[in-house]
């Protein structure tokens, strides 16, 4: 079993015993639920303003899950062991990101369907919304890895990572929201795919660089 597969399996197992997708999906649905509460019962308003907010809920849900990703590894010594592996740290980080996408990203994308419907998105857009969320989650996670690695040594890093990462979440949110309101869907999807690819390719490299420093 390669180090990549071992890391992926372990992270999936740990996230699963830690409650799996239940908590992030619950957070996501909970946050979307707050929107109509805050906006009041005006149906027309919700119809106009609601669907894009699915993206904010999704961004914040993934953020909440990300933050302890490397902090725990640093505190309990697991990071040192990852550095001792013959596999490059970049690969291991990628494996962790992939695990997170499978256990958290994909379920949130799927939960995007009921959430979008609850926020009055047109039903025919739902498949595109789910697809866009799946891509957006990959972009969020790729960027989030860097934020998580940079703040791994900071206690209460939860809000710091948000501050660092949110500016980079802007492009996927802008184009993702375009999908949610049915605006130039195909173009937006291809830009999202680009974001996802870029973040997945560059994120682990920057994150691994930061983690090497954290271990000092």
């Amino acid at each position, binding site marked *: *079993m*390669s*180090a990549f*597969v*071992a*890391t992926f*399996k*372990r992270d999936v*197992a*740990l996230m699963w*015993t*830690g409650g799996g997708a239940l908590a992030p999906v619950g957070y996501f649905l909970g946050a979307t639920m707050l929107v109509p509460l805050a906006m009041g019962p005006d149906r027309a308003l919700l119809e106009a303003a609601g669907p894009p907010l699915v993206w904010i809920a999704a961004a914040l849900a993934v953020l909440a899950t990300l933050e302890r990703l490397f902090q*725990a590894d640093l*505190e*309990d*010594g*697991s990071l*040192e*062991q*990852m*550095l*001792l*592996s*013959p*596999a490059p740290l970049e690969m*291991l980080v990628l494996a962790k990101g992939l695990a997170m996408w499978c256990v958290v990203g994909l379920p949130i994308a799927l939960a995007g369907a009921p959430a979008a419907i609850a926020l009055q998105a047109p039903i025919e857009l739902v498949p595109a919304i789910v697809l866009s969320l799946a891509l957006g989650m990959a972009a969020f996670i790729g960027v989030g890895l860097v934020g998580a690695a940079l703040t791994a040594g900071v206690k209460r890093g939860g809000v710091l990572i948000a501050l660092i990462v949110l500016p980079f979440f802007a492009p996927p949110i802008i184009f993702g929201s375009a999908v949610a309101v049915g605006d130039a869907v195909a173009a937006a999807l291809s830009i999202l795919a680009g974001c996802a690819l870029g973040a997945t390719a560059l994120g682990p490299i920057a994150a691994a660089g930061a983690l090497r420093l954290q*271990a*000092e």
Partner: protein
Amino acid sequence: MSGSGPFQDKPSLRVESLTLKRGERILVRDLSFVAAPGAFVEVRGGNGAGKTTLLRALAGFLKPSAGRIVFDGAEEPSLTMHYVGHLNALKGGASVRAHLRYWAGLFGVAERDDEALSRLSLAAQADLPARVLSQGQARRLALSRLVIAKRPVWLLDEPAAALDAQGRAVLAALIEAHRADGGVVVAAVHEALGPAPSQTLTVGV
């Protein structure tokens, strides 16, 4: 090590005029030594003298301020050495056996859970989550990485911490067997581990 014979290539560890700093403090100044195959280097020094700092530098986590650390006759440091530090690197939610499997994958070696469990007397705990292990059991699990990873150079930071008498005897036996196979052991200790060291380094003043 039982069942797998001595190491093919027997690397030795060579340290040349090493200087290490933490913050503004110089902890190790101009240290040089060679640990040949079979060597057991004991690192001594009071609390805060710099033993952990030295071992972490040998493991490659910490960049030296000056000097070099070389593994002679080895392809790659990551295939050559293993480090067991103060932190046990355990995840509370994973079982003892799951840790052993993961490490085998991480270090790119064959799975040998049962051998590791029996060597460290952890068989009864194999399916417990690491969260419920006692301090000494957790330490045994961390030490079992030495059996799993099977690297020729061991860097051990107070390996006997929290071990009972039986645990210390097991550790001593592991070290003896490792030396007999041509391995190198560098261990920071406050009290002798049992096997007579071939060399004692004292850090700090």
